[in-house]
């Protein structure tokens, strides 16, 4: 079953077409890789799907519903979480607090519709039990990712590898159905990358579908069930890792045509 798919998705920035008629599909329960040379439009595709950018044309469907053009916070609440290419943690909040933010919207929202503003007021007077829930659950995810000992640290003081893990914990705290990881292995050494692979597998074991943008081919080929390849904003191939590796257009995109 397709958990997520885009249809003729197009994103233009002025004259530049960053995403060009892309039909991107994600099967439920899979680990899907999204690869392509730098500037191929992978992150832009992420941004459009998750609502941080609006598509110029095309549609995005999640769990059968049309989520095209919805604001980011609505899409997040529907069950899509993500991390960022250049690590965007809240710098003046410590690790624990960062993860708690991921947990935030899970709190009760008794007011619907236009009165929704009062929800924020409600969060103000919220119960001790809800706060405790947040602490417990956030801690749980810190432990899952294995970084609980850094809970009191400010992100800026931590090595990149750990910061990426904090971002992942924060996203997991949202208990998403679909998790987008944008270059999670960037800047990691082989040991850390192994560690990450293990973590991603464990995430999949929780019935969370994972999509990852990556440049580390070993990682991609190793854990992905399906891979989509973008080049210059267009989808040039999609299939199993083995199929992709043999695909002539993919090889050309990465290595160039033989002179």
């Amino acid at each position, binding site marked *: 079953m397709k958990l997520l798919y885009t249809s003729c998705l197009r994103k233009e920035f002025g004259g530049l077409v960053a995403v060009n008629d892309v039909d991107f599909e994600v099967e439920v329960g899979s680990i899907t890789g999204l690869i392509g040379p730098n500037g191929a439009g992978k992150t832009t595709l992420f941004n459009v799907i998750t609502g941080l950018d609006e598509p110029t044309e095309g549609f995005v469907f999640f769990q059968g519903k049309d989520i095209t053009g919805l604001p980011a916070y609505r899409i997040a609440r529907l069950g899509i979480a993500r991390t960022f290419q250049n690590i965007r943690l809240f710098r003046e909040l410590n690790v624990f607090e960062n993860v708690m933010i991921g947990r935030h919207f899970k709190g009760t929202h008794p007011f619907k519709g236009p009165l929704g503003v009062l929800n924020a007021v409600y*969060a103000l007077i919220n119960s001790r039990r809800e706060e405790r829930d947040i602490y417990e659950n956030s801690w749980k995810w810190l432990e899952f990712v294995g970084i609980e000992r850094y809970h009191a640290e400010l992100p800026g003081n931590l090595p990149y590898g750990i910061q990426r893990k904090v971002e992942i914990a924060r996203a997991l705290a949202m208990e998403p159905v679909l998790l987008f990881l944008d270059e999670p292995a960037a800047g990691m050494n082989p040991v850390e990358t192994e560690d990450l692979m293990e973590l991603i597998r464990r995430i999949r074991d929780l019935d969370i579908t994972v999509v990852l943008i990556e440049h580390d081919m070993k990682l991609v080929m190793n854990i992905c069930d399906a891979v989509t390849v973008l080049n210059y904003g267009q989808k040039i191939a999609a299939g199993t890792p083995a199929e992709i590796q043999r695909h002539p257009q993919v090889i050309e995109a990465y290595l160039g045509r033989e002179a």
Partner: protein
Amino acid sequence: MWNFLSLLVVYVEIYAILALSLNLIAGYTGLLSLCHAAFYAIGAYVTAVGMTAGGWNFWFALLMSGIMASILGFFVGLPTLRLKGDYLAIATLGFGEVVKNVIINWDSLTRGPNGINGVPAPVVFGIQFGFDTRFGYVLLYAVFVVLTYAVVWRVVHSRFGRALEAIREDEVVVGAMGINAVKYKVVAFSLGAFFAGIAGSLWAIYNQSVAPQTFDFMLSVMILCMVVLGGLGNSLGALMGTVVLVLLSEAPRLTGLTSVVPAQFNQMFFGLLLIVVMIFRPQGVLGRKRISYENEVARILERRSM
């Protein structure tokens, strides 16, 4: 002497409420608001008009001041809080000027540039306040300062406050976490405006008159400076900044040097202070207050081992 001292303390108390509430908006939520004086003005005028023309009693006027200011904050915030940093500052600046202009021009309601005189002193718990009850003011207003501090504290140490800080840090990402940033910003803004309105009411009562010239852009700047000086995002810092700046601006009067020191030197020193603090210690004297979760973590681990 005591007269002057109690006046100083009352000034500090009123400004403290302004600084604490602006700290919530600017320090914690990171909204560059340059119109806090406008909410102060609205509170002051609501009380002044209400008590003179409307015959309201003090407590009702006080409450209405806060509510009206906060309602205006809500309606102004709704459209403008979608704007980024600098643009928000400009918009609030514009709004502040509009409010002042409207007050000056709506003579039928506000008596224009002459302001409203003869705001009656309040009757609190049966005691008629007035010139003789200087200490009464000091004590009564202190209660409001404590109230404001407590509310801000509760906000900051809650899920809501945490969301505000996250919004300050990175509004885009906060959206990706399922939080509708604009809603939270509007609530924070309105809440801050509420207390500014309360402060305005207290001013109207104490001064027993209100005039539009008081509530200008410079005042908004001064309140912002109190917050920045002490440390953005630090309530204690806001209090400290208030005390320092009120003392500074009244220093010539305090030391009896009014005739020697030209009026402008005061302001010039203030301007210089601003520049120097920004260059050498932009985080303010006390810096931002960080919350510690050691207790909560300990409790979680305890529950595990049980």
